[in-house]
């Protein structure tokens, strides 16, 4: 089971269950200790939302509906993971939503304009996406500016570049259809296929999402790099003082977000064949929201990789659940907001109750 790792540098000695305890270091009951973990609150919130929709929207009980909800959650969740790691590391990235589209546009236009195998486009897009992350991280570390400013800048740059370059190259504001090009079917199999589980079509992105989450959890809790992430997010100065490579950690976290943007961008490209250059705006807030709901602090230093999985699931569940429940569509966004706030409050209440006493 995962837990919130303490920042390596600032962690106090663990209150071990010593026999001659004077009461101050006494172990609290297991249930309370469990509830104090950041992902348990969101887990309960997600379960509450799930039960709510299972009751109010009978269609949700169907297996294929659940597959659809999981698909929606996975496209948010794959990005929410690196975004969450970055937040644990004390920074956030406003450019992540449009960066997804930048990656998809790059892959599509490279392959199409040069009439290359689509894998060439996929690799060029990966390089571009990592370079965007590198640029974000490098500028942040180099200048010491807050990540809000740096990534707001890249957000605007990418938004403009997406549109202008696409228009310049294709003479349209959307890319051309690449579905009949060499390598498309293989790439689709990797990024956008689906498979059958007991008669239900499950999207491959769901598998990738859970695999990435498992990997991120392992990295965060069992590796030196994971400790570095908590350390730079908790207290950058003392982290540096004890020899944590702060610069490397921050830049690599931004590049990880670039990797996520590439992956989701490829999914969009290979499931829809073309990309409109104006998409993606506003998605960055959804990724950040999924991470925050998942227990990552906006101030850094705390959080988990499994929390954002439930955060993204909650988003997907609410967004699709409203449709399954057949509620008046005019209220769609309001419903979404109310459900999310409710879930966050449950999350908060659980944690407060658990850590009091």
């Amino acid at each position, binding site marked *: 089971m995962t837990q919130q790792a303490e920042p390596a540098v600032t962690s106090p000695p663990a209150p071990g269950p010593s026999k001659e305890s004077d009461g101050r270091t006494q172990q609290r009951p297991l249930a309370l200790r469990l509830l104090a973990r950041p992902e348990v609150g969101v887990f309960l919130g997600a379960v509450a939302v799930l039960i709510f929709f299972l009751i109010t929207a009978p269609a949700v009980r169907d297996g294929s509906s659940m597959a659809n909800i999981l698909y929606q959650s996975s496209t948010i969740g794959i990005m929410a993971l690196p975004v969450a790691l970055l937040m644990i590391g004390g920074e956030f990235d406003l450019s992540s939503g449009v960066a997804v589209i930048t990656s998809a546009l790059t892959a599509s236009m490279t392959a199409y304009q040069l009439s290359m195998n689509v894998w060439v486009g996929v*690799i060029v897009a990966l390089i571009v996406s990592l370079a965007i992350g590198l640029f974000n991280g490098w500028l942040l570390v180099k200048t010491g500016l807050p990540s809000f400013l740096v990534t707001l800048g890249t957000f605007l740059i990418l938004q403009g570049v997406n549109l202008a370059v696409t228009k310049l190259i294709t003479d349209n504001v959307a890319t051309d259809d690449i579905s009949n090009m060499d390598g498309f079917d293989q790439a689709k199999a990797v990024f956008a296929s689906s498979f059958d589980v007991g008669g239900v079509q499950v999207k491959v992105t769901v598998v990738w999402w859970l695999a990435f989450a498992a990997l991120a959890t392992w990295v965060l809790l069992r590796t030196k790099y994971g400790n570095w992430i908590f350390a730079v997010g908790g207290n950058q100065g003392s982290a540096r003082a004890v020899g944590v490579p702060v610069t490397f950690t921050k830049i690599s976290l931004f590049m990880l977000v670039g990797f996520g943007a590439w992956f989701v961008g490829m999914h969009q490209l290979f499931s829809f064949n073309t990309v409109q250059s104006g998409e993606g705006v506003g998605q960055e807030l959804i990724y950040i929201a999924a991470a925050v709901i998942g227990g990552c602090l906006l101030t850094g230093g705390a959080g988990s990789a499994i929390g954002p999985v439930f955060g993204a699931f909650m988003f997907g569940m609410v967004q699709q659940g409203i449709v399954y429940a057949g509620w008046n*569509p005019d209220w769609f966004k309001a419903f979404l907001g109310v459900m999310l706030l409710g879930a966050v409050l449950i999350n908060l209440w659980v944690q407060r109750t658990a850590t009091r006493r």
Partner: protein
Amino acid sequence: MDRYYPRSRKLAPMVAMAAAAALTLAGCSSSSGGKQAEEGGENASAGKANTPRMTVALVTHQSAGDTFWDIVRKGAEAAAAKDNVKLIYSNDPNAGNQANLVQNAIDQKVDGIAITLAKPDAMKDVVSKAKAKGIPVVGLNSGVSEWQKLGLMEFFGQDETVAGEALGKRLNEAGAKKAVCVIQEQGNIGLEQRCAGVKKTFEGDVENLNVNGTDMPSVKSTITAKLKTDSDIDYVVALGAPYALTAAQSVDEAGSKAKVATFDLNNQLTGAIKKGDIEFAVDQQPYLQGYLAIDSLWLYKNNGNYMGGGEAPVLTGPAFVDKTNVETIDKFAAKGTR
């Protein structure tokens, strides 16, 4: 400040390796599709007028990266090239900003202004300012019920409600019983009017569905969700070409029997109509809207004409595109002008 970059030196060889890999892959070019397979086509061109050069501003409420508005702009550019007009294009989805852009055009002392009236009230002041300076103003695309009140000279576009009604009638002919109208931008008046028009004439049931238009995976799963909750739905009505193509995927995924109809065209959509993935599209001919708006200002300046006589709008739609006529339209759509 710390200047310690232990890993960045390792990055350079990595980038070099990736680049090398890309170059190796470059050996395998695609044998199908791609730019090489694209057929060339000339733009509509009819020589060039020898009238004195004039300047016209086109100010729309386009949001960035929308295929529809790109076609409007191409029409305007074609007319400008033919009429020896210098075209100044600007756009902003925020009504206040759009009004500022019109003010900007007035300050530049242009010879004519073409605007969209997505939010007519916000444009009232600048339109009267332009008129006070003697600059003719025409409207296009949205505002078919408002252009006269604001004192615009002419209007080119489609009545969204009328277009919706035409689509509703078409659904009746197709024997549809239950339709869902997919709105990709919650609160957009034009989109709401289209769905309302469908509701007016369609004899079966129609329900609206809001989706998040900036996130395609979300559009796809939301439509899939809707189709799964209600297997009686036999028509999905999309309000834009990219959303129609996604809706067709949703129908597939939900295992639904529903057919897809849409408003507006683009070059992928004509292919989908040919293949039968999409039944038909209501085309409001955005190219024509852009073209006529600029051409009309040229005509007014050089010959004093105004189309519609200042009384009636010039309707550019609804024109239906389906299997019967898609062949002729397809080659224009491929160039991104239809």
